[in-house]
């Protein structure tokens, strides 16, 4: 390859990394609400993302024909609509199952309920993934729209023949992801319910002294966490084909991003996810395609082993 081709290749992967990373960042923000802030282990986070993908797929299927949305807007509307839907699923799962081993009930258990949470959510993950197989079938599907196969072409740059193809669907999806992150961060920072959630996560007992219904706050936070990750899934669905077992790979992606970003910080989680997206895409410079995910796993191992407090944001206080 000529130097120009190398540069082109690099820029192409960098762009892809940033675009994918923005969506990973959104997914990580969702997990961060649950794991980083509330300190609840949710192994099934990837399966909630998978639900988001399928919900988006079906919502898209039912609205795409209508004039108002059209094929161009519908995928993004569908992805956003997934949020509230999975939020509700999250509330139910939390109320029926997760709340038994978290919060004040969890603190009575061994290791503050972390083991019970791990095992319970592993069970939920198996049920959702395999239940998904029954309901959705095993054939990979994707939301195909005109945008997801249309690039913007940037260049030629520097008088040489560097041409950059930027996928339009991915770009809009990344922008939507950033928008959702910003909106959610604002909600958490400046609204009364957002403050109550943060307070309940920070010190649940003191939150009770303030008159906050901590169980309810945790339930809502869980709903937000899975809902936001599901939106990420919905956005990813328009460019990546998926099947019901897709969740497990993304669990590691999300935990890697959240741990990298530093627990308890939404901004850190987003940056962490962005970094993981870049690592995944740029690893293609020296690794064969099949090993992209291995690169993420190795990256995750290195992060938890070498720098469990994360790169961005503060070190977690309640380790």
């Amino acid at each position: 390859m000529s130097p120009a081709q190398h540069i082109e290749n690099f820029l192409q992967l960098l762009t892809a990394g940033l675009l994918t990373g923005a969506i990973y960042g959104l997914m990580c923000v969702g997990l961060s609400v649950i794991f980083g802030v509330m300190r609840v282990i949710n192994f099934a986070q990837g399966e909630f993302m998978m639900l988001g993908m399928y919900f988006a797929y079906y919502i898209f299927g039912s609205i795409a024909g209508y004039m108002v949305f059209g094929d161009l807007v519908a995928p993004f509307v569908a992805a956003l609509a997934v949020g509230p839907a999975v939020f509700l699923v999250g509330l139910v799962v939390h109320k029926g199952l997760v709340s038994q081993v978290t919060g004040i009930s969890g603190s009575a258990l061994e290791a503050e309920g972390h083991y019970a949470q791990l095992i319970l959510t592993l069970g939920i993950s198996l049920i959702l993934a395999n239940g998904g197989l029954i309901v959705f079938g095993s054939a990979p599907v994707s939301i195909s729209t005109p945008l997801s196969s249309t690039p913007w072409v940037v260049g030629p740059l520097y008088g040489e023949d560097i041409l950059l193809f930027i996928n339009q669907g991915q770009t809009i999806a990344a922008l939507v992801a950033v928008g959702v992150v910003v909106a959610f961060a604002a909600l958490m920072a400046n609204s009364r319910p957002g403050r109550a959630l943060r307070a309940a996560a920070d010190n649940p007992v003191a939150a009770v002294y303030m008159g906050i219904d901590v169980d309810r706050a945790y339930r809502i936070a869980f709903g937000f966490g899975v809902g936001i990750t599901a939106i990420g899934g919905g956005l990813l669905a328009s460019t990546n084909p998926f099947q019901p077992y897709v969740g497990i790979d993304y669990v590691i992606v999300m935990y890697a991003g959240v741990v990298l970003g530093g627990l308890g910080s939404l901004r850190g989680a987003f940056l962490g996810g962005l970094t993981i997206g870049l690592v995944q895409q740029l690893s293609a410079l020296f690794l064969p395609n099949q090993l992209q995910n291995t690169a993420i796993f190795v990256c995750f191992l290195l992060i938890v082993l070498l720098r469990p407090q994360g790169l961005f944001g503060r070190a977690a206080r309640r380790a």
Partner: protein
Amino acid sequence: MSRTGRHWPWIAAFALAYGALALFVDNQYYQLIMTVVLVWAVMGLAWNLLSGYSGLISFGHAAFFGLGAYFVALIQLTWGISPWYGIPLAALLGGVAGLVVGVPTFRLRGHYFALAMLAYPLALLYVFEWLGYQEVAVPMVRDAPAAYMQFDDGRVYILIGLGFVVASMLITRLVERSRFGMCLLAIKQDETAAEAAGIDTLAWKLRAIVLSGAMAATIGGFYAVVQLVVTPLSVFGVLVSAQALIVAMFGGVGTVWGPVIGAVTLVPLSAWLDAEFAERLPGIQGVIYGVAIVAVVMLAPEGLFWKVRDIVRRRRAASARTESATAATPAAATRADGFRVADVRAGRTVLTVNGLSKSFGGLRAVDAVSLEVRQGEIVGIIGPNGAGKTTLFNLLNGFIAPDAGEVLLDGQSILGKAPNRICRGGVGRTFQIVKPFRRMSIADNVVIGAYVNAGSDDDARALATAAIAAVGLGDAAESIAGSVSNEQLRLMELARALASRPSILLLDEIFAGLAGAEVERLMQVIRGLAALGITIVIIEHTMQAMVQLVDRFIVLDHGAVLAAGSPGAVTRDPAVIEAYLGRKWLEDA
């Protein structure tokens, strides 16, 4: 778990019954199911050996399983090496993999450990796909099939599998009843307390993962032989790790029988559902495992085995209510002689602390503390809440490192030594909050403390028995720790610390939650230990019981030594009165 229960005959009976049943099954499909049950029983036992006993949950046992499976398949494919050699070699490989995984990963605890373990098999899965091993078939051997572990009769596989199960159960049993298992259980309960009791936690965890990895790789190799085809997903997939965990958790964690019960129940159930409904409901197997594990967490968090045993125990307890709970009796001094400290010279300084300081984020928790403790003394360290007493103990037994100062035990510096080394050197310790191993008997709880300075497991037993007698718990030795009174728990913890044959005992708020006669009895016991030459340092907030017990008080306030001296002098010291009752008390008086 019960030490008195005989496992060997039961294991033999199970093997005979299963083997006999196998002889009557001539349907090949059922034969396969019966073999696969055994595979998962061994996988469950392998997982259980590490995670069930030590409490470090592994989500990644598929890594060992898959390595074993690929290894056995590939060496036969490439070099024609028979699985009869391949499987033992796979065990070796699994053990090495355990070591390689364990050394870095044991730096993590709790959920981080679990998640990190998940990453290993997933990474391997993609690596094996990339290497082009999407589907490795074990070649059929025509001329000498038996030499390559290939049999026409499926029942032979069942018998071989049964051999692996029996071996795994016996290994588990050996581990469980030796100090190996006891140390893992101690780690599960409280890793820091285990260190303080003299257990080298990292070494035991590594041994556990090596053994566990070897077991998993062995059965992975056998699985390759049985299935004849190895794919990345079938051996490195999440369901492999999950299934190991689920059969163990379902049947009962930390037991020899749990994984076997789990496998015998769940594997046929899911296989039947799969056969029956797979057409219409393709993921039914995974759903069943998911539901099983959710139900276990909700209804019987430690598995069927424990649930059933708890119910049986409760029934029996209800019928035997008439036997009243045994109260502690004063120390039987004659039996306590074994704990006499050898080097008894009156006035010999045992512990010297010079200028010890420790700050936490600007707060001087311990501030230039100097003190000396002489042999056979009972010293009370008292002070209001937040005076730095527990921090001082944590510095003395090596849990935390000081910013400045030195600590000498018998004239030797103990700074920078691991807590388990310091314990070995003669510093025993109890904790503010007793953390018993609830399902174990008092005797088993105490024996964990005895390993440090005992040559053999039998010595440790003897030491534990003597320590239990010395604190007057003899009658309650076989009671389950979860069922005894607060007083007995305190005595048990004291016995656990005593069983390490300490020259000095650090007791952190040992009187907390005791009242009246209980306090009197415990003071008796402590005096008895001091009479053996054991030096005793007690932390307490309140002086009430302490004034009658101690030879000397050291009063801490805001991390510094406020006063020191005899009980009479200290309780009249204005500085002490001010610390306890406020400055105005003196002004008004």
